[in-house]
């Protein structure tokens, strides 16, 4: 099986020590390919480390939109030994490896950042094939798999570039090696040299000195590989096209942040945490907001002393009427649980953008997982209303970012917007975002007439019992509208009340907002069914970032005549039982796919719909699910192998 047999599709990987420019090289490569008309999906992997540990960036390019990665690689681009040791065995037959020829004799044992576990695995691989335990051995393994390897003498090449530029210092700057590596790979792919130069100009445009040396290095490497090597056996069948028109190359955290800006978020708090901080930093670098009315708006981003301060400061700000958010990841969210209940109790609109990573505790802080679903739903003590919404990809992250604020204000409650590292740190070519969504503020008022004040002493009844469980909300500081908030149970004015009758009425009022939400929220925001032109009675259910890999696997299965429908659940709480039941009606096979140990969505579906899950496909090794492995797992189930729980283990 392969996703790679199609024309115009490549799975490409660059690796190197953290801090050596892997990220910027991958970005240049992605931009270059996008300029040649290809859709891109890029995935980042890195250690919890600043400098030195192995990081890598996988990029898929395709003539059709792509939204997931594959296990197999067609082109491995490296400038250190570790990248070859770790990834060379994943390169598919006919694939290419670019490496530093001066490192050919590097012994596996001598690479200090290859940990013991990885060392053992690689050792076994080489020993089983009777190969020597060095880089040449690893390359021999790849060659025996049908790969073509190109050793580039980077050091000599840099010296030549330095000489060409009359800059003897350049030889000391190994910084251009990443650009040389990608330029060589672009040359092998047959992509026009101008495109990489254009991409380099975009990336280094503001740094003229870096720009000049990188362009020189790119040009040299581009020609070098073609003149020094016989490259006629490289057959990737890449046919360049016109650049994608009106498309973005964007990451999930950027998409969510831009959604917040458009959606009217004007106050955001955060405490630094991976992978959530990127969003806050992006917001801060765009803190002045252009507006249609000619005035400048702005977003105040506050870095707090901890996550408890982050959420409580956000709640305090929200009381003034501003759309407010905080962004965090699992460990930070754990600290926010108590305050989340306060916001629920006092009916304060608040958005918590929750970038999941692998837990528990510190877990795998820079790796992938979707294991905070049940925690998000159940966070906080006592019963209080909240909405939990999960985006399935980068584009959804943008629109959901806006919807989250609408929900928060319409239903006056905290909204947890679930994303995960596979969305936030990945990059994708997306159709340019539209700004057609409306801003809906529900029963929000900032002027109250004197005669509208009621209550025992002419006060405003912020929590008034009316036909609707949702009361009129005003910012603190509004004339004629003095009210109180308290974490205690309270009266309509907001004073502490331990009265049993009032307690029932207040609890009912708050919780009934969830019924209203279920009634009013659009069906597409609850759950989406992808049917692949069939009404197959086999269904895959999932949520969040697994969407891309599942859709691609199902498409391939569909082409093979094995039809399955996909139900992506977007509203996780309150659970859209009716909608999901409707989709699950008459299903013979329900397969749950999730990136966590315990099939959290599966439990939720069972609990709410009564429908048992037939098969579970889970993954919790910290690496996201690829189309390849989900395809294989689904095929296994469809072929009659009745494994109840399949654990995926792909990824390096």
């Amino acid at each position: 099986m392969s996703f790679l047999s199609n024309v115009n599709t490549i799975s490409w990987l660059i690796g190197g020590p953290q801090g050596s420019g892997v990220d910027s090289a991958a970005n240049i490569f992605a931009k270059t390919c996008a300029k040649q008309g290809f859709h891109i999906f890029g995935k980042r992997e890195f250690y919890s480390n600043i400098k030195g540990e192995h990081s890598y960036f996988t990029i898929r390019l395709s003539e059709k939109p792509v939204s997931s990665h594959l296990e197999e690689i067609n082109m491995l681009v490296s400038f250190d030994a570790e990248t070859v040791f770790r990834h060379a065995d994943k390169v598919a037959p006919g694939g290419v490896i670019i490496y530093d020829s001066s490192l050919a004799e590097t012994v596996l044992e001598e690479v200090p950042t290859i940990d013991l576990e990885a060392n053992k695995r690689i050792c076994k691989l080489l020993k089983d094939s009777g190969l020597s335990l060095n880089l040449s051995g690893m390359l021999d393994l790849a060659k025996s798999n049908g790969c073509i390897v190109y050793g580039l003498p980077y050091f000599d090449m840099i010296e030549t570039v330095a000489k060409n530029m009359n800059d003897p210092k350049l030889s000391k700057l190994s910084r251009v090696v990443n650009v040389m590596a990608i330029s060589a790979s672009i040359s092998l792919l047959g992509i026009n040299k101008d495109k990489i130069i254009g991409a380099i100009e975009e990336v280094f445009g503001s740094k003229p000195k870096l720009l000049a040396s990188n362009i020189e290095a790119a040009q040299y490497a581009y020609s070098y590989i073609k003149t020094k090597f016989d490259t006629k056996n490289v057959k990737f069948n890449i046919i360049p096209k016109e650049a994608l028109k009106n498309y973005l190359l964007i990451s999930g955290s950027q998409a969510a942040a831009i959604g917040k800006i458009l959606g009217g978020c004007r106050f955001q708090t955060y405490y630094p945490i991976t992978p959530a901080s990127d969003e806050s930093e992006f917001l801060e670098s765009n803190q002045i907001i252009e507006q249609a009315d000619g005035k400048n708006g702005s977003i105040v981003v506050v870095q707090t002393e901890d996550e408890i301060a982050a959420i409580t400061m956000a709640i305090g700000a929200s009381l003034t009427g501003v759309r407010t958010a905080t962004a965090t990841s699992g460990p930070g969210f754990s600290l926010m649980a108590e305050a989340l209940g306060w916001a629920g109790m006092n009916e304060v609109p608040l958005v918590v953008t929750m970038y999941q990573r692998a837990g528990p505790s510190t877990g795998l802080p820079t790796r992938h997982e979707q294991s905070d679903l049940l925690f998000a739903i159940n966070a906080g003590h006592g019963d209080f209303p909240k909405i939990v919404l999960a985006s399935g990809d980068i584009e959804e992250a943008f629109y959901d970012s806006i919807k989250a604020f609408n929900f928060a204000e319409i239903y006056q409650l905290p909204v947890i917007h679930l994303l995960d590292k596979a969305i936030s740190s990945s990059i994708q070519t997306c159709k340019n975002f539209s700004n057609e969504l409306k801003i809906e503020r529900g029963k929000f008022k900032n002027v109250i007439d004197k005669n509208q004040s009621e209550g025992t002493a002419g006060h405003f009844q912020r929590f008034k019992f009316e036909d609707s469980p949702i009361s009129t909300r005003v910012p603190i500081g509004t004339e004629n509208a003095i009210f109180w908030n308290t974490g205690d149970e309270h009266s309509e004015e907001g004073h502490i009340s331990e009265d049993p009758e009032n307690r029932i009425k207040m609890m009912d009022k708050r919780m009934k907002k969830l019924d209203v939400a279920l009634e009013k929220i659009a069906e597409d925001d609850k759950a989406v069914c992808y049917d692949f032109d069939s009404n197959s009675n086999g269904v895959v259910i999932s949520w969040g970032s697994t969407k891309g890999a599942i859709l691609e696997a199902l498409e391939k299965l569909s082409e093979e005549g094995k039809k399955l429908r996909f139900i992506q659940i977007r509203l996780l709480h309150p659970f859209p039982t009716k909608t999901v039941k409707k989709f699950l009606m008459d299903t013979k096979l329900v397969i749950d796919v999730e990136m966590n140990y315990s099939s959290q969505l599966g439990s939720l579906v069972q609990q709410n719909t009564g429908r048992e899950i037939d098969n579970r496909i889970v993954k919790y090794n910290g690496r996201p699910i690829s189309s390849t492995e989900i395809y294989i797992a689904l095929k296994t189930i469809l072929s009659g192998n009745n494994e109840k729980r399949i654990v995926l283990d792909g990824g390096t």
Partner: protein
Amino acid sequence: MAELKLADYKTTVHNDWCPGCGDFGILNSIQMALTEMQIPRHKAIIFSGIGCSGKTPHFINVYGIHTLHGRVLPFAQGAKIANPDLEIIAVGGDGDGLGIGAGHFVGAGRKNVDIPYLIFNNAVYGLTKGQASPTLRLGEKTKSLVTPNTSNSVNPIALALVSGFTFIARSYSYDVKHLKNTITRAITHKGLAFVDVLQPCPTYDDIHTREWYQGKNNLDSDNPKPRIYKIEEAGYDGTIHDESEVNEKMSKILEYSSEWGDKIPIGIFYQNELVPSYHERIAENIKDYFVRPPSHQAISDNENKPIAKIDKILDKLKIN
């Protein structure tokens, strides 16, 4: 506008503090300060933490936000940063602010948001029935403690100073006039103001009683000498006029802060308005922050369409 009277700042909510509680004096002083300053009722917002002191907002006839244990400062700072036009006052207990909320106390000092913060300091956790608070001294045994206190106490004045508070004062709940004046100064101060309010807990603290503060258990009980004295009356002025005065003043404040027992100083130890407030720091980057702070900004037009323009941000991410 009709003049606001003291009664206008009082609610009819039943006050359930113990008879003789020091909180009453603090409540009265806050209401007196609001009256004196004629702060429009809807412009004032009292934020509180949890505990007996946490109930304070319910007794004051202005907006009242009764938050979580230890978190009053971040709640209050969030509101003030989002809307600097509001007159926000934060109040809380000593356990609230110096125990569970100590991290926020230090964090707030670094920011210097323009709010006053009053700690109702009675050395015990009253509402949970008299456990030792962070200001109870090592070895002291108040009524409810099974054994003498095994933890040492934190020094609130010194902690405020090293954390960066720009106004630091102490007052006493039964000297309502002094306390009212101190609160007024704290409200007027540009930046983060801390007022450590000493108060007896008549129910659980049988050591630091009203009589103790008055000096009645001193050796010469016929001629009691009050423990509390006013530093201004001793000729001290805590105002910083020039940054060069800071170091010298700091040593003096640390000296005052360690006085306890027979001599307890109250008054304004420190006021430094030369330090830019957090709001001024924001305005360095967002020029019209004071004109259009977050809470004042329009975000949609008449048809509820967003008015933010994101084209320029998206252009940078476009493929072309």
